[in-house]
Every structure is written in C-alpha cells, then in structure tokens.
C-alpha cells in the first residue's frame, strides 16, 4: 500500500464513521420512550422536565442537535450519560479495556488453535484423519458464539463447574488496579492470584468467541495450504528431500497466510461484534454489556458513544489488516 493509498483509506474511514454517526443519531431520535421520563422522579413538574430537556439539548431541532453533537464529538466530547450521569468518554474508557482484553485473548486463541489444527490437518492429508477433521470443523463452523456461550455455561459452569459463571474478577479479591487493563497490569506487576482469577473468568467468554474464529481459521488456512501444497515448488522441495513438516511450514505456510489473514481480519471484527452478546451472557463488565444496558435505559449519549467506538475499532482493524497483508506479500510492490 502506497502512502496515497493509505490516505485514501483513511479518508474513506472518516467518511464511513460519519455515516455511522449520522445513522445512529437519526435512529436514536426516533426511539420511542422518553429518556427524560426514565430519570426523573414522579413528583417532577413540567418545568423541571423542560429544564432537563434543555440541559440535554433535546428541545432543539434535529439538525441543530446533530450539529452540536457532532462538533462535540470532534472535540472528543461525547456528552453525559443520562442513566449514569457521568461523562460518556470516561465510561467507555473504563469498559473498553475489558472488552479489548477479551477480544485479543479470543483472537490469539482462535489463531493459534486454528493454525495448529490446520497444519496438523495438512500433514495428515490423504489419511482418514483428514476428512474426519473436516467434518468436525464443519460442525464447529456452524455453531455461533451465542450458542457456544450458552453451551459453555451449561458444561463448564453448571454440570462441571470449573470456571466462574459471571463477572471479570472475584470482587472479594480486592486488588487495586491503576489501569483498566487488569489482565496486562496483573501480569506486569506480578499479581499472579489476580491474574489467575482474571483468566478463570475469561476462559468461557474467550472460548465462546474464539472457537468459531478457530474453525474459520482452520478452514481457510487448510484450503490455502492445500492449494499451496500441490504447487510445483512444493513438489520440487519434496524431491530435494525436505521433510513434510518443513514443506508445510517453510514452503506452503508463507504463501497461505495472505488469504487467511484477510479473512481473519474480517472475522475479528465480527468477533468484536460478538462480544456484545457474549459479555451479556457472562455478565462480563465490558463495553458490549454496557451497550445493551444503555439501549434498555434509552441512554442516547452513551449508545452513540459506544456505537462510534465500535465503528472506529472495526475500521482500524480493517486498515491494519490491509497494511499487514501488503507487508507480508512480496509481490504487492510489483502489483501496485
């Protein structure tokens, strides 16, 4: 990707985010149910309500509301949450690290598990293990994160209760954290008890998100590897006496990661989207869980802030994936 390509991408990203902003703004103005009505006491007078409406800018016309809100967003001001009466950015800042830690853990799990299984499957080509693996993987591909999460609740939470069913960390473990990246912080500050507890809480949501990703990685990578393995260069390397494992890792893998990476990037964004429901199921205090509460409470500023945050993350991931793919592919320069 050349510098001007990157500029183009960034410009498009800004356009997309603006589109997201417009849509979410318009959508929220037609929400039935008055957010003000939910936050006031029954004894409030109409004057109190009007004052509150004016306070949140709800008495202005839609275009003005959008204009004011959008200018504020550009300044990094997402407004104040109606239900929690706190700064939206602050709330997001508190919850986002939990979601990011979960998503990255699931990404690492999915890619590692998928990569290892795809490599083993490729080594086992032309044995009975291979079609069996494809069949099982086909089943895994069909199960979405929501169903995984529920199945895990049942299996590892109830029938064989090895992992805690909800939350991010045991509240009795009153460890004080300086940042909201608990997992990373506990690791670098050697708080191993906290680290272990964080991991135990994370295992189930991570599996629910990571298993579908792993299945996709297995399929894509295996197909790409199979395609590479029948190329003449692999045949020549085999004739030169290269071992099967080296054939896969050295000859085929590097040519197979390109297509896999692009697809994994797309799936990663889907997976971040999946955190919303998975966090809900495990009462994991992340951004997605807060988002659903915000919708239920009709907390417009908070919803807007969260949706834009998710949008920005998705777009950023996509650009990153393109950058990595361009850097991995030595032919990219010749094509550009």
């Amino acid at each position: 990707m050349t510098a001007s390509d990157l500029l183009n991408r960034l410009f498009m990203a800004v356009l997309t985010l603006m589109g997201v902003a417009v849509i979410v703004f318009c959508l929220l103005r037609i929400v039935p149910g008055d957010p003000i009505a939910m936050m006031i006491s029954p004894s409030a007078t109409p004057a109190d309500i009007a004052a509150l409406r004016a306070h949140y800018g709800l008495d202005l016309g839609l275009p003005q509301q959008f204009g004011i809100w959008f200018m504020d967003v550009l300044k990094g001001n997402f407004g104040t949450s109606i239900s929690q009466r706190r700064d939206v950015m602050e709330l997001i800042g508190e919850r986002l690290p939990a979601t990011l830690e979960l998503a990255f853990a699931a990404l690492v799990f999915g890619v590692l598990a998928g990569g290892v299984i795809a490599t083993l499957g490729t080594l086992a080509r032309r044995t009975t293990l291979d079609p069996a693996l494809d069949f099982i993987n086909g089943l895994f591909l069909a199960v979405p994160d929501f169903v995984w999460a529920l199945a895990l609740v049942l299996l590892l939470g109830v029938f064989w209760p090895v992992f805690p069913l909800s939350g991010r960390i045991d509240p009795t473990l009153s460890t004080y954290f300086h940042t909201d990246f608990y997992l990373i912080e506990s690791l670098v500050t050697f708080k191993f008890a906290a680290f272990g507890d964080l991991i135990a809480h994370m295992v189930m949501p991570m599996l629910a998100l990571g298993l579908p990703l792993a299945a996709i990685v297995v399929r894509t990578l295996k197909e790409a590897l199979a395609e590479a393995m029948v190329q003449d260069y692999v045949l020549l390397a085999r004739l030169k006496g290269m071992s099967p494992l080296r054939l896969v890792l050295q000859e085929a893998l590097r040519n197979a990661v390109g297509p896999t990476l692009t697809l994994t990037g797309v799936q990663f964004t889907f997976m971040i989207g999946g955190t919303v429901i998975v966090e809900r199921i495990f009462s994991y205090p992340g951004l997605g869980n807060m988002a659903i509460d915000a919708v239920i409470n009709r907390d417009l500023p908070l919803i807007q802030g969260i949706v834009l945050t998710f949008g920005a993350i998705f777009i950023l991931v996509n650009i990153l994936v393109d950058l990595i793919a361009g850097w991995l592919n030595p032919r990219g320069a010749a094509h550009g």
Partner: protein
Amino acid sequence: MKTIKPLLREPRVVIAGGFLLLLLLIAIFAPYIAPKDPLEQDLMLGNMPPVTSPGAEPGYYLGTDDLGRDVLSRVLYGSRIALTVAFVAASLSAVIGTLMGLAAGWYGGWADRIISRLVDIWMAFPPVLLSVLLVAVLGSGLHSVIAAIVIIDWTRFCRVVRAETMAQARLDYVMAAETIGFSRSHILWREILPNVAPVLIAVVSLEMGIAVIVEAILSFVGLSLSSDIPTWGGMIAQGRQMIHQGWWVFVFPLIALFATVLAFNQLGNGLRKALDPVMRR
C-alpha cells in the same frame, strides 16, 4: 427433475433438509402434536424434571418451568417463531441484498460506489448491538424482529452477490454474450444470475440459521416478543436465571436452537456443492 437428482446425492442436503422439513411440519401442526397448552400455568407443578429423572410428573416429558408450563410443548411451539423469522427475514434480506449486489457488481460506477459505501458503513456496526437498537426503536414484536434482521443482514447478500457477479463478469461467456449483442440487463438476468444462484441459495440457507440465532438473542435480551409467546431464546433466558434449580428449561430449547442452526448451515453448504454445475477439472 434434472436439478433434484444431484441434490439427493449429497448426504448433507438429505439429512439437514429432512430435519428441517420435519421441523416445519412440527411448527405447522404444533397444536395437534404438543401434549399440553404451552401457556397453561400450574404452580403446583413448577420445576418438574424430565421423565428420566426421579420425581418426574407423568405427561410432562421434558419437565416444567418454574410456572409449571410444559417444556416440551413450549419447545415445539417455539419452532413456529423460529421458522417464521428464518423464512421471512432470510427471503426479504436475500431479495434486497441480491438486487443491490447485482447492481453494484454488474453496473459498477456510481451504483457500486454508493452501495459499497453503504455496506462499509453497515459493517462498522456491531450487528448484535444494532439489532438490539433497532428493536428498541421499532418496538418489540415479530415484525420488528424481522425488520431488524433484514435491515442488518441485506449486506451479507449484497457482499456475496457483488463479489460473485464481478467474478462471473470477468469470464469469457459474458464477453461472448456481449459480442452477440445481448443487452446489459439480458446478460445480467439470463447469463450471470443463473451462475450466481448456487452461491446465493447457499447463503439464503445460512442466513436462515443466522436469523434463528438473532431472534433467540433478542428474546434472550428480553426484547423480541412478549413472554406469552414461547420462543427458544426466551426459554433459554428464563432457564439461564434458574439454571441451578433446573437445567432442563435451559437445555432443551438450546438443543432445538443448536440443531436448527446446524441443519440450516449444513443444508447451505451441501446445496452449494450440489448445485455447482461444472466439476472443476
């Protein structure tokens, strides 16, 4: 007839299709099959386990929930909502998404630029959050659930159809049709669409599975339908609350959900393989 035969040779199509057909019959004839009224409460018979466990109440094969409602009947009735949402939402989003995808992939230019940008914007929303938001906006009820799914998932068809149309458009048979003098729209509908159809049909089937899941998620969050109507997602949410008192309220609708999604998925993949006319050499 010519197209049926290869379908029957694909085991995934036969097994998954057979299961879904059975499910459809159950949904249609639920009032005749279900042993109890799914809404009938009997607080004396709350939290009864399935018949295999000790202390079960005869006649309540899969046990009862905390309000004494028959789990089996509720699971059977739940298939009605699931399949309605699956068929209606998937067909509607398929029609909208396919039209958009064909326009973008074949006519290109401004149509493509606008549609692709729309899809990009759509892809920047987390789908679950957007569906929750949409149902909040539209108000709960079956129509809202279907509308939310269509509004979100037309992009899935649009992306697949656009990419496939562009791939087909590069093949020589399209250029051949052009040299013969067929109009652009003739080439699109008569030459390209039949070749896009296998992938499209497969995605429709996959989308049906996704729609079932989305409905379940919305019910789980408590936004889909009123609790009077038995839905798998609603039962799962209810079962999740009382999972330590009785696992059966949670497990059976989950199994029904899982089997249905798996069947739509396998049917889709089987169809994609069976409908490919050319065995690649």
